[in-house]
Each structure stands twice: as C-alpha cells, then as structure tokens.
C-alpha cells in the first residue's frame, strides 16, 4: 500500500480512538449525573441511612468522609512537609535520598487493600483502636503520604535556588529560609498538591473497609461530647464513608433501593472530586502567574 494512504488510514484510526475516549468520559459523566440526580434532595443528603428499607439518606456518611479527610490531612500534612523538606533541601547524600525516594514509590504503588489490611492489623487490632475514624485516618495517612510528599517536593522545586542563597547569605539558617521564604512563595503549589491528594483520599474505599469500618451509627449533631458514640466529632466511633457506603449497599444488597442510593452517592462523590480538581487547577494557574511575574 502506498505510504500516503497508510498515513491517512492511521490518522483516521487514531482520531476515532481518541474520540472514543472522549465519548466514554462524556457517557460516564452523563450517566452518573442522570442516574444520580433523581435521588438527590435535601433529605437524601442529610438523612440517616436505612439498613433494610428504601428511602435512606447519606448524611452521616457524607460527614464521615469529610471528617476523615480533615483528620488524615491533619496527621499527614505536617509529616509530608517534613519529609518533602528533607528530600528537597537537606538530603545531601544522593544515595540516601534515592533510597528514600524508592521506598516512597513502593509505598505509593501498594494496592490500597493491602494498605487497608496493614491498618487493620496494626491500628485496629494491635493498637486496640477498633473500627474507628482514627484507625481510618491513620491508614489513609499511609495512603496519602506518598502523594503529598511528591506534590510538596515538586512545589518546593519550582522556587529558584537564588532565593535560598539570599536567605543563607544573610546569616539565616536553611530551616528559616525554607519555612519563611520558600514555602510562602510556593504555597499555591503546595495547596494544589494537597487538594489533589484530598480528591484521591475522598474517594478511597478499599483502605477503609477494615479500618474505619462499615457501619455508621446515627449522629447527633448537637452532641459535642467527643467521647460519646453519637457525637460526630468522636474519633473512636466506627464511621462508614460515602465511598464505602456505595460498595456496601451493592455487595450486601439488603436495601431495596441500593441502585438509587448508589447512584445518588456516586454523583455526590464525583461532584466533590470535581470541585477539588477545579480548585487545584485554579490555584496552580495562580502560582504559575505569580512565578512568571504577571
């Protein structure tokens, strides 16, 4: 066959396949939207879940997902900052840094169910934390750390080395230069990394099934005693998240409206993740503008 013809055919095939991908995503999003929107109303978003009947809501699950996200960020963010600063600013021996980076890569590629089982073994059983928000948050931290470290390290690297030299030449320590000059300068980049990680964490379920648990005791939002089982802030209560809820209603099939509940929950999940992504993109652009001096 003549090369020109082949070129044309190949290009056409590539166009068709690329379009297919776009069509798949659009179909996915439309499906999630139209299947879910029917279920969504105020009662669904705030109401309590039902175990055996139809008409349950996802109020507790939605709150649990957010609370777990915040708690795990509170634990993992300071750690990730420390690790990223070490790798980007302090690790002077190349071999040590490379070894630690490899370990973080291994950690990031572990299947989340394996991470969940480790959390189950260590936090739930050995530390006697039971199925609880705390067990879940600690487990999510393992899952979260590699993402955060990479994001923060990338952000730190965007700041020119001349800023570090400027601080050092004034007799400031590297630590002060990093915490007071470098981090403020790349803050939007760091926040972008954090939000992207938050999106991943918000949708995570496999690591939580055996750590935060699969039950959501009803919450009483006027109960501020954090040791009470119905207090939303109690970190020792079991807490099924939205993502785990979708999995559970489908695999157990005890409620008659499992499909509708899943569809509504999926829409909420996807919308939240979308908001995270848009926010991250916006902040990323802002940083880019600032660094290029516009």
């Amino acid at each position: 066959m003549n090369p020109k013809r082949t070129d044309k055919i190949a290009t056409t095939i590539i166009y068709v396949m690329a379009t297919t991908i776009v069509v798949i995503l659009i179909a996915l999003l439309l499906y999630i939207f139209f299947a879910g929107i029917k279920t969504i109303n105020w009662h669904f978003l705030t109401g309590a879940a039902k175990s055996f009947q139809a008409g349950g809501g996802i109020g507790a699950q939605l709150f649990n997902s957010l609370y777990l996200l915040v708690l795990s960020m509170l634990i993992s963010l300071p750690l990730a900052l420390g690790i990223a600063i070490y790798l980007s600013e302090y690790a002077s021996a190349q071999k040590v840094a490379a070894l630690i980076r490899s370990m973080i890569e291994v950690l990031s590629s572990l299947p989340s169910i394996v991470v969940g089982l480790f959390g189950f073994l260590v936090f739930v059983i050995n530390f006697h934390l039971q199925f609880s928000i705390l067990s879940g948050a600690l487990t999510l931290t393992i899952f979260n750390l590699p993402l955060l470290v990479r994001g923060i390290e990338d952000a730190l690297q965007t700041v020119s080395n001349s800023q570090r030299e400027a601080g050092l030449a004034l007799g400031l320590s590297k630590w002060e230069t990093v915490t007071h000059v470098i981090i403020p300068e790349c803050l939007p980049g760091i926040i972008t990394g954090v939000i992207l990680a938050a999106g991943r964490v918000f949708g995570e379920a496999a690591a939580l099934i055996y750590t935060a648990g699969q039950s959501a005791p009803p919450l009483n939002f006027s109960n501020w005693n954090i040791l009470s089982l119905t207090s939303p802030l109690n970190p020792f209560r079991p807490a099924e998240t939205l993502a785990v809820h979708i999995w559970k209603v489908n695999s157990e099939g005890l409620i008659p409206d499992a499909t509708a509940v899943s569809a509504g929950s999926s829409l909420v999940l996807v919308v939240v993740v979308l908001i995270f992504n848009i926010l991250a993109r916006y902040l990323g652009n802002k940083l880019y503008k600032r660094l290029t001096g516009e």
Partner: protein
Amino acid sequence: MAQELATFTRPLAKDASSALSTEDLRVHYGAKEALHGVSLNFERHKITSLIGASGSGKSTYLRSLNRMNDTIATAQITGKIMYRNVNINLPQVDVYEVRKHIGMVFQRPNPFSKSIRDNITFALERRGLKDRQKLAEIVEQTLKQASLWEQVKDDLDKSALALSGGQQQRLCIARALAMKPDILLMDEPASALDPISTANIETTMQELKKDYTIIIVTHNMQQASRISDYTAFFHMGQMIEFDQTRRIFTRPQVQLTENYVSGHFG
C-alpha cells in the same frame, strides 16, 4: 601545568590594615581542584576587584569567603580564611555568624517575594529585633545608603518584585547592609543590568567604601579600573597577579595579565 605559571603578589603597604585574608585557599569539587591555593590580603575600606575569564575561579573564590560553597555537597575547601584573627574556614566556626559579618550580593537580583520593607527587616526580625521604630530607621538608612530611598519611600509595602532590575539589585544591597556587615562580597552585581543602573550601582559602591570593605567579582575590565583600589587577576583556577588597580592596568608584572587586560584573550 597550571601550578607552574608565573605569579606576582604585591604586599599591602605597611600602614594598611587588613580586613580579610586567605592563605593557600583551595577548592575541590569531588576529585577536581577548581582553585589552586590562593593567598590574598584585602585592605580595610577599599574596593578589590577580582577579574578573569569565565571559569577562572574568581567566583568560586569569592563564594568561599563567606562559606557559601558549604552548600555544595561535593565542594571541599581547604586553607585559611583569616577574619578578625579567626580562621573562619574551620568547621567549628559558626557559618551563620560568618555570613552576618561578611554579606553578599549576587549576580542576579534575588529579592524575596515580600514587600520592600520586609526584604530589609525580615532577617533582623528573625534574629529577634522587634522594635518597630528601630526597624523603620534601619530601612530608611540602608535604602539611603543604597541610593534607593527617594524612589521607594512611599511604596515600602509594595512587592519587591515590582521594582526594576537595577532597583531590585540596590534593594539587595540594602538588605545585605541591614545586617551591618564588615565586608561586602559582590558577585558580578551589575552583569544583569543596563548601563544606567550599572553606573548607579558603581556610584553607590564608592559611597559604601567609606564604611565597608568591598570585594567584587567582575568580568568588565572598565568597571574594575573605574571603581577598585586593588585588582586580582585569576586564570584557570589560579591567582596570577594582585596589585594596585592602576598598576595592573598600566604596568602588569606578569605576561598573562598583560595579555588579558590588553584584550589579547578572554
């Protein structure tokens, strides 16, 4: 071999006082020796230029004087750097204290992305100076020394990044002066600037000379001859000739220096 080149160093006058000196200062990057044993003496309240082609070792030498080369993991610096009768090239000497007394201005202006005021006060505040009155005085005084006060006195809260390149460089000079250093190291401070800004910086340096000892790296020979009292010529990691500036440019003692200043190479 580089070591066998002829060199000439004129000692300082008997009554001149030395602010800083080096003895057999060598810098290794890994196995490679980048600077081959430089011994120099810098007179107090004078300007000394370090000239030479790119890669001659002049910047490496300058960055060793306030131990900025410490930040490069592979760099090894041996020999003595004498400052106030202390060899500051010893590991037990506090590098942060060294850098406070031996300030530095870099080739490219590198103000912090903070306000003009904060650029000057930041390091002072970190070192515990909280008195607002005192800080305001220092801001005014150092900006005046750097001949920037008149242009920015109404915009002290504006971002330093909004200034022009020449203004940014003068802000960096003011920032360095705020730490009240003895010695100011300048690494081609005008190379990224236009001729007018360069002239302004040179005037500023003549003013600063009254209170500070200045060591400046420059690739611009006219600049060296205009502003400096002493000049040291570097070639391939070696210090070839050190003398009063007018002698270097009129009657150099070494052929290599003669070739360089007359433009036969480099």
